């Protein structure tokens, strides 16, 4: 018997089932198909504007920094201002997401921006988030050519653009977006929930920022 | 005389009170009578069976529990001056009979009428204050079973507040185990010592001159450690029932009875 069949057989023996019971199969099928909602904390059950405010508050509480701009037109100035303030070179790398072609880069002519994945030599990565989750100040980033996953982890500084209207209350709202974009039961290769910059408490339980991932997380809320 | 007004209460005295600290039993009787109860001490009682239960000897635990169900059947309430024995009687005795439908009903009925002393006084009898006085600064240790199995935390503090002359000061980590753990304290005495050593430091750090708790096992453990570590002169140890009953003339736990040397 294969390991697979052996394990399934032991599970069924232990549970006293055959695996063919129609009611059990139905219960499982229904749950997978309907994915019933659980309890969603009231904390984030807010009108959209307040959700944005909560998102910002929670993200700042986990040491992310935030800039807010009215439109994409203001993004180059916001990025350049951040880089200057942190003594960073005027260079960043991003993916092929349409948002990056919509940014009027020529407003900051000294700001160099290249596209593609990171090989570990970029100091600053720029991503566009699928969504932000207000309840914990969490960003949801999806892998692919638009926003390569390496940009989320290799650069020392990670800057993330998020449209204010993409800020939702809870994780469940992110599942809704994924299901409508990829189809039920389907997922992007990688979904990264990011809540603040990388950290470790492994030396004497003292929390230090910048373990293996980015030392800084800067979020630009657009709109 | 209605049962509700003057219920018949059986005192489950517990083995440690029976053997080591009879004064707690008398204090419990006094408090129960002050709360309007008619108190009896069934002679057929021995132990709650926890040593067997926690050692994995379910058969013995059941044999003892069966006797308990018989002995205490006739009473309106069963009250024990201990959260640990109270937890055994209230939570675990029904567990022992879960697979025995005949006894399960009896065990559940028994559990429903069984209480730890102080929470019985406040939560069932509605006692808000006691008529007692003691000039002392006390700190209260929350014994684990009482705290986590029976939810005893505010009840003893509420009644202690009404003791004239007594002030309460909280120790750090009052909800952390004292390291007694029944047979644990002798089977793993080195670990137990580390835990009770830390507890003794927490108690000493309050500056209190009186340590109170609701369980003789924990009290003997903490008293023994405080005395061994040289805190015995400063910090006296008593069961909370003695203070609430105003029966603090006798010697504290682990002290000689200098008034009775005849």
């Amino acid at each position: 018997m294969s390991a697979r069949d052996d394990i399934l057989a032991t599970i069924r023996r232990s549970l006293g089932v055959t695996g063919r019971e129609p009611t059990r199969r139905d219960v499982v099928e229904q749950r997978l198909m309907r994915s019933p909602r659980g309890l969603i904390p009231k904390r984030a059950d807010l009108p959209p504007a307040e959700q944005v405010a909560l998102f910002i508050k929670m993200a700042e509480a986990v040491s992310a920094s935030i800039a807010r701009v009215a439109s994409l037109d203001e993004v180059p100035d916001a990025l350049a201002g951040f880089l200057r303030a942190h003594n960073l070179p005027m260079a960043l790398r991003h993916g092929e997401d349409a948002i990056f072609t919509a940014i009027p880069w020529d407003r900051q002519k000294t700001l160099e921006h290249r596209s593609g994945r990171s090989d570990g030599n970029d100091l600053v990565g720029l991503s566009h988030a699928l969504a932000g989750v207000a309840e914990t100040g969490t960003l949801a980033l999806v892998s692919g050519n638009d926003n390569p996953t390496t940009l989320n982890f290799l650069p020392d500084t990670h800057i993330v653009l998020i449209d204010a209207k993409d800020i939702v209350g809870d994780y469940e709202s992110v599942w809704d977006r994924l299901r409508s974009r990829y189809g039920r039961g389907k997922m992007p290769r990688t979904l990264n929930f990011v809540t603040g910059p990388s950290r470790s408490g492994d030396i004497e339980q003292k929390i230090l920022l910048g373990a293996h991932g980015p030392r800084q997380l800067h979020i630009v809320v657009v709109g | 005389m209605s049962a509700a007004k003057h219920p018949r209460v059986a005192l489950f005295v517990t083995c440690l009170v029976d053997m080591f600290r009879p004064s707690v039993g008398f204090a419990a009787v006094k408090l129960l009578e002050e709360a309007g109860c008619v108190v009896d001490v069934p002679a057929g009682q021995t132990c709650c069976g926890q040593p067997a239960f926690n050692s994995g000897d379910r058969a013995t635990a059941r044999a003892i529990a069966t006797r308990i169900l018989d002995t205490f059947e006739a009473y309106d309430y069963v009250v024990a001056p201990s959260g640990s024995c109270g937890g055994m009687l209230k939570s675990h005795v029904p567990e022992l009979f879960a697979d025995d439908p005949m006894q399960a009903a009896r065990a559940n009925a028994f559990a429903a009428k069984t209480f730890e002393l102080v929470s019985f006084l406040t939560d069932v009898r509605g006692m808000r204050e006691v008529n007692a006085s003691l000039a002392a600064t006390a700190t209260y240790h929350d014994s684990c079973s009482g705290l986590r199995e029976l939810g005893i935390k505010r009840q003893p503090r509420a009644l202690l507040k009404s003791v004239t002359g007594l002030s309460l000061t909280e120790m750090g980590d009052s909800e952390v185990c004292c390291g007694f753990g029944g047979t644990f304290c002798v089977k793993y005495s080195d670990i137990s010592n580390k835990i009770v050593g830390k507890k003794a430091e927490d108690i000493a750090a309050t500056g209190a001159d009186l340590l109170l708790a609701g369980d003789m096992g924990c009290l003997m453990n903490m008293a023994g450690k405080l005395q061994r570590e040289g805190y015995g002169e400063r910090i006296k140890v008593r069961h909370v029932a003695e203070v609430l009953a105003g029966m603090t003339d006798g010697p504290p736990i682990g002290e000689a009875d200098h008034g009775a040397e005849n």
Partner: protein
Amino acid sequence: MFLTTETFKENAVEALGNEQLQRAMHNVEAGFIGKRKAAADRLPEFDQLRANARDIKNHTLAHLDLYLEAYEANLTAAGGLLHFARNSEEARSVVLDICKRVNARTVTKGKSMISEEINLNEALSAAGVDPIETDLGEYIIQLRGEHPSHIIAPAVHVLKEQVEADFRRVHTHLAPERNLDEPESLLGEARAVLRDKFLKSDIGVTGANFLIAETGTSIIVTNEGNGDLTQTLPRIHIVIASIEKLVPTLDDVSQILRVLARSATGQDFSVYTTLSTGPRRPGDPDGPEEYHVILLDNGRSSMLGSEFQDMLRCIRCGACMNHCPVYHAVGGHAYGSVYPGPMGAVLTPSLFGVDKAGHLPNASTFCGRCESVCPMMIPLPKMMRHWREREFERNLSPATFRAGLSVWAFFATRPWLYHLATRIGMLVLGFAGKARGRFSWLPLAGGWTKYRDLPAPAGATFQAAWAKRPRT
């Protein structure tokens, strides 16, 4: 197999005498307890979420065969490869076979307790593959040749001076005069050393906190980002997980995620929660080309339907050990097993046999603090007691202890004899202890009086005095 649970008592005595360990253990209490409580208090729905999390896992376990089949189908549809492993050896050989096929030289690793359980590093080294732990705590203990002493803070037993010494010993390519006084500089050094390893790694191995049946997804929850670098950069990503990590849907896992970090580190949410579904897709500029999941049983399927089934709800947050007075006293290594603390005291006998791990479920005061903080509401003391019952049934408890217990039981079931014996016994003890009110030493009470005095009884038992009381 690294298993020294049989010498738990000796391990404990050694740990209690280890001054560095004792200093380090203060960090557990200071670093976890207050933060967990604050995080729980900030979320009014916390206890309801715990109950939901418990119910979700109970439901999953009751239908585990079917959810595993659904997971398998969805994972396969996403291009992932699933390998079942009955035991550690089978799990190791899946990894070794992959290493061999691609001629791997180095394997970077995210933190995984299953990897510890199956002793993967030793097997890799023996096969000529270099396993590199990348979680800072795991990296530290790998340098020290140790095993984790805590399931989420593997190096919690190590002081920063010890880390500095280890780094100086191993990182010989760096300037000897460099300053490593502060934890920040230690972290910076580990980051730089490991960054290079990430970029050159052939295979990345991670664990999984959850597997989602609905989508065939594996989830890792981390703070450092090492797990993501481990799984994103190499050509092959191998996930090793045990069968009980299954959760039906994304909605279900969000309930459990809401209690995980809060219980573990007191964060509302960990920094990185990463959901991985299959290998690199067409057009993806990064990510692994192969995505393997090894599903380990190792006796878990037999725990289903038994009195230990509830243990399979465990999400490895570490809250039980963070709140355990015994763990605080002796640290994780004394348990002599992969899993320390209360959850280990229940799980280790399941995995390695109660005849070898019998001390663990006994070395508990049953204070119940572990159960009170467990996000999955696992009745840990109750299950430790079940192990004691199994031991008792199998005559595995020490003979002297059993003898004592049966003498006591003889009296406890015979009230009149009991009262007679206690009456005489207490009279004798009361008389002997009258002058001082306590004993510093007493025959047969050495376990007690070695460290504390024994209060002397009053003399007369309560029952005797009650029988003689003046009646009105």
